[in-house]
Each structure stands twice: as structure tokens, then as C-alpha cells.
């Protein structure tokens, strides 16, 4: 099959083809590489090389478990879940508290007037927000990164974090409250 044709195919079709032919998996990897590398860095604050190592391991895990992919879910959610778990387990191995790095585009996303920014201190700047997110417990940091930086829906977040959708709503609301409190308390 010509490569151009593969590039236009839906994720789910590519998964079926990848099971038979590993080269096709390359199309899926390229499709998500940029987004997932950014996600790992946002979540962990790791250097690019370390983030690439995590992504490589995640891709191999995803390839080995292609038959476990449930076609009723979005492929991206399934892949994000694998990457998320791999990143978390890497943190735990290193036993180091990750620190969030907000790229310019992330800062723009937050400043662009969504509900989180409205609730935050008007004088908040990027460095303060980075520090405040660093102080958040892991579950709240996950929620903030997925919702505001990865711009995932509640349903997608539920599938990525393997939690009930109702819990996601509570998680985000608590994460925002905690973030506000940290900003006020520490003047982070």
C-alpha cells in the first residue's frame, strides 16, 4: 500500500494493519510523536532525550498490546494512557519530584481566557504557575495537564486515567481549588 494512502487512513484502520505488518505502525508513531513528546515533558519536566526514551518504550508496549486495543475507545486515548503510565513509572524509578515546564504555547492556552485563568490571580505569571503546578499532588497535576494543556475532553481523560467520568470533574475542580490555594499561600 502506498505510504501516502496510509497517512490518510484512520487510526483504527492503521491498528488493524499494524498487527499484520509492523511497518504500518510507523505511520501511527509519526502521527503522535510530537504531541506525546510534549505531553511527557509537560507531565514530567524531563529533558527531550529522556522523554524520547520514555516514548520509545511506550511505543513498544503499545505495539506488543495492539490486540488489547479496544476499538470502542479512541486510539489516541489508549496511547496517551500507555504513555502516561510509562511516564509515571519512570518518575517513581527516579524517585524525583517532577517539575512542570510550560512552553510558550501552553502559557498562551492558559492565558487565552479559559475558566482556569479567570479563577487565577490576575497578576499570575508563567513562572509562578509552573511552581504552583509543581507543588500539586500527582493526581491533580495529571488532571491539569490533560485538561488545560492537552485539551482533552472529560471522556478522553476518563479513558486515559482509567477513572469514572464523574471523578474527573471532581478532580479538575479540586485541582483548580488547590492550585489557587497554593498561589495564594506561597505566592508561588
Amino acid at each position, binding site marked *: 500500500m502506498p505510504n501516502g494512502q496510509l497517512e490518510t487512513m484512520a487510526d483504527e484502520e492503521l491498528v488493524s494493519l499494524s498487527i499484520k505488518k*509492523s511497518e504500518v505502525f510507523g505511520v501511527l508513531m509519526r502521527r503522535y510523536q510530537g504531541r506525546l513528546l510534549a505531553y511527557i515533558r509537560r507531565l514530567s519536566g524531563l529533558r527531550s532525550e529522556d522523554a524520547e526514551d520514555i516514548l*520509545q518504550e511506550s511505543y513498544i508496549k503499545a505495539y506488543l498490546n495492539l*490486540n488489547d486495543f479496544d476499538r470502542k475507545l479512541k486510539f489516541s486515548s489508549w496511547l496517551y494512557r500507555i504513555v502516561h503510565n510509562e511516564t509515571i513509572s519512570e518518575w517513581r524509578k527516579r524517585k524525583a519530584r517532577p517539575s512542570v515546564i510550560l512552553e510558550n504555547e501552553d502559557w498562551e492556552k492558559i492565558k487565552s481566557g479559559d475558566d482556569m485563568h479567570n479563577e487565577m490571580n490576575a497578576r499570575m505569571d508563567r513562572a509562578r504557575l509552573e511552581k504552583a503546578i509543581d507543588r500539586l499532588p500527582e493526581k491533580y497535576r495529571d488532571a491539569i495537564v490533560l485538561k488545560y494543556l492537552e485539551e482533552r475532553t472529560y471522556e478522553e481523560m476518563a479513558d486515559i486515567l482509567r477513572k469514572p467520568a464523574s471523578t474527573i470533574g471532581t478532580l479538575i475542580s479540586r485541582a483548580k481549588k488547590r492550585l489557587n490555594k497554593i498561589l495564594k499561600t506561597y505566592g508561588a
Partner: protein
Amino acid sequence: MELSQQVLEKIEKENMHPSSRYAVFLKRSIFWSLTATALVVGSIAVSITFFSIANAEWDLWSRATGSVWKYVFFIFPYFWLLIFVGFILLAHYNLRHTKYGYRFTLSKVIIIYVVSTVVLGGVFYRLGLGHMIEESIADSTSFYHHLQGDRMMWVMPDQGLLGGKVEGIDDLYNFILTDQDGRRWQVAVSGTIGVEYTVLGAKIKIIGERFGTSSFRAVEIRSWCGCGGCDQQVAPACAHATATCGAGSGCGCGE
């Protein structure tokens, strides 16, 4: 080299392949089976609880504990409640590992689990399954009766309560009984209530009084399976009869 290319090379070099559909199916089935097992064990716990409550010999509270409330706390099946709660958590853990199980909140799992186990436990109770399993646990362990108040009360000879297995019959009014602690008793029957339960090898409950170190005078004999349990054909002493529950005198078996 590009990351995706590196991954593809590693896949080829190490001859990696996606896990087979069968392996995936097996992995999923394990969690579903464990969830189902948790449901069945919970239902057994419920059916044993139902049985304990239905056959609690409420007329004996003053002999056993001296107070109704003490008696309620004494006979409450804590062990099975603990098993029940433990298996709810196990069911939740297993369900979370199934395909969509993570979409259920703990409170939803608890509601579904409780409703299902009460329904299934009710069916088990009617079939006598829970009691049958409890009896085999009691027969094969030496400690189980210490965990269940409704069994422990039948090793209280000083309060006039003794229960166990009929090991030998001298005549209609004298027999030998081994209690749940394995102690042998010479029992003399001084009344006629429930004498029909005194069958060799049967388990019975005796109400009476202790005299001497290992002698007991029986005023009333009851079926081991208790009131309401006789029709379930689970205890040998009751297999021939049906329950007759008399006011004040507990229950007996009628033809």
C-alpha cells in the same frame, strides 16, 4: 535516526510481535472470573448471614448472654461481614482491570454488589447452599465455631447449652456426644422434647444443665440446623422431617 524508525528496527531486530488475541482474551477472562468469584463468595456470606439470623434461637438469649442486645451482638456473623466487605473491595479491584470496569465509581460498585449478593445469597439460602458450605468449613476446621457466636453458644455447658455430634447411643435416654471442641459428654435425657433427633452420627443442640465434669442432663433437644432450616435437607438429623416451630419452645421436627 528518527524515533519511529528506531522503534521499528528494535521490533524487527528482537522479533517482536503483538500478543495474540487468545492471550488478550485470557487476561481479560481472568479479571472477569475473579470478579464473578468475588460475587459468589459474597453471596455465600450473605446466605450464611441469613441462615444465622433465621436460626438464631432467639428464645435462648437469657441463657446465652442475659440480655437481648448482648445476644444480638454475640450472634452477629462478624466473620462473614468481614469476608463480604473484603470481597467488595476485591470485586472493585478486579472490575477496574476489566475493559470498562474503571468507569464505575466505588459507590456504584458497592450498590451493584450488595443488590446482586443479596439476591443471589437469598437463592443460595433457599437452596441450603450457604449452610452446607458453612457446615463443611466447621467440620474441617477446629476454630471456626469460635468465630461464629451462633455456634460458640453451643459450647457453653455452664449456661446449659451444649451441641455436637451423637457418637454413641446407650439407650433412648442416654447417649454420648462430642462437642465442637472435641470433648466427650455423657448425656442423660430427662424430657421428651426432640428425642427423635438423637440419631447416631447426627449433630444436635441440647438445652439442659451440666452436672459433673463431663455429664449433661438434657431437658430439650433441637435439630442442629435450627428452626426454619429443617426443610432444607442439609443436616442428617433433619433429612426425614419438616420444621415445626412452636411458640416458646423453639422448634422441632414433625413428620
